[in-house]
């Protein structure tokens, strides 16, 4: 028997298996973890919808269970996780959706009691960086954030537009941002985002510049374990990076380190930064989880998801110092063929 076979597999549960046109980070997170040679893993997928592609990617996800939607609340989630844990004995759980994180953070102590380790931001930091509070957050920590206004009624739009001028950005509570060039466009965007994500809506001043994203991992004590900046090379209609490249810019590293120090950020995170034409970095958004392009961190030499697993398990990790600049990712889509029986299984029994 090989030495490796004797080692107990670490059971890791991961959400966001929706590797679709606007992908969730789950599949990239799993791919990164599987690349790490320090441990053997069994991956448990946690899915909301029966058509999340990761459910059917059996070389990536070993077994998938459906879990209740975030709107069902923490009791339903905890009950379902208890059931799954009785079967799978989960060691580490990594949630990757913005909309579900609040629930997972709230039950993280309960999960710890049944042996499920997490490495999530504290609720205070999680809420402080929320789009709705971002402006206040920026002022508190002296981060450059574009001026914004949180509104609850469409009537507030024209007055805000007068102040900000056009173009301006209309943003949904959880996801989506629409650049608008007139009051009519802004009104339409308001209703569209309200219908999808609810209220409030955030109106943000438009900053012209280059879009940079930074993936980072904080240890929860103010130390940066890993920072990888990426310039979007190809952007989809939804504003998602379809290709990107790692870049070297001390200004970006500084702002990421400052963010981690100020918030004592625990876990993975993505800073969306707009580098203005006069080279001033504005934080546009703080996403409280790994981005969908996180596998690029592995290619650049800093495996953030695998390092998060080690941190969640209480292992000591040494902060990364170097990464490879000029590593490029190009995303692609692929039509998988699945049997109806598999679809029936996950839809009917809630597991596959």
């Amino acid at each position, binding site marked *: 028997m090989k030495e490796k076979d004797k080692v107990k597999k670490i059971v890791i549960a991961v959400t966001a298996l929706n590797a679709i046109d606007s992908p969730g980070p789950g599949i990239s997170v799993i791919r990164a973890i599987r690349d790490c040679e320090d441990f053997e893993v069994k991956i448990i997928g946690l899915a909301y919808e029966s058509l999340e592609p990761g459910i059917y990617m059996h070389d990536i996800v070993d077994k998938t269970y459906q879990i209740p939607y975030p709107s069902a609340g923490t009791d339903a989630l905890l009950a379902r996780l208890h059931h799954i844990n009785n079967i799978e004995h989960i060691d580490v759980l990594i949630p990757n959706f913005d909309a579900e994180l609040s629930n997972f953070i709230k039950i993280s102590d309960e999960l710890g009691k049944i042996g499920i380790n997490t490495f999530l931001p504290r609720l205070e930091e999680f809420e402080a960086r929320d789009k709705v509070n971002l402006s206040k957050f920026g002022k508190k920590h002296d981060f450059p954030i574009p001026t914004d206004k949180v509104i609850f009624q469409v009537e507030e739009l024209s007055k805000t537009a007068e102040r900000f001028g056009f173009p301006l950005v209309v943003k949904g509570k959880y996801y989506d941002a629409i650049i608008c060039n007139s009051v009519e466009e802004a009104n339409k965007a308001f209703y569209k985002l309200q219908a999808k994500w609810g209220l409030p809506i955030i109106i943000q001043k438009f900053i012209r510049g*280059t879009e940079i994203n930074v993936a980072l991992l904080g240890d929860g004590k103010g130390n940066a374990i890993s920072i990888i900046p*990426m*310039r979007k090379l190809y952007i989809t209609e939804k504003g998602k990076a379809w290709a990107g490249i790692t870049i*070297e*810019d001390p200004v970006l590293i500084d702002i990421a380190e400052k963010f981690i120090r100020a918030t004592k950020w625990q876990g993975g995170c993505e800073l969306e930064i707009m580098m203005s034409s006069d080279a001033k970095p504005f934080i546009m958004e703080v996403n409280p989880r790994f981005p969908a392009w996180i596998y690029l961190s592995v290619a650049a030499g800093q495996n953030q998801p695998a390092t998060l697993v080690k941190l969640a398990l209480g292992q000591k990790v040494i902060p990364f110092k170097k990464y490879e*600049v*000029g590593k490029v990712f190009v995303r692609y889509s692929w039509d998988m063929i699945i049997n109806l029986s598999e679809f029936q299984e996950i839809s009917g029994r809630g597991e596959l």
Partner: protein
Amino acid sequence: MKLKKNIATSEAGFIFNPGTGDSFSVNNMGSEILSILKENKSQDEVIESISSKYEVERSQLEKDLEDFFSQLYGYNLLEI
């Protein structure tokens, strides 16, 4: 006239700016000029080097180089 220190170039005429992620392609002549610039040569030395190798009116070469350098500068590839 100096290329920024961190700018990467290849013989095939590929230029990569690691600070911004921008990449560019130049033709053979552009590639040759860049390789001379990488040796920290002055603008006059670039002119001497190219005119000794190719048949070209000096005034035309100066004009074309001026144009090329202003593009490099515009793309943030030269030291200020």
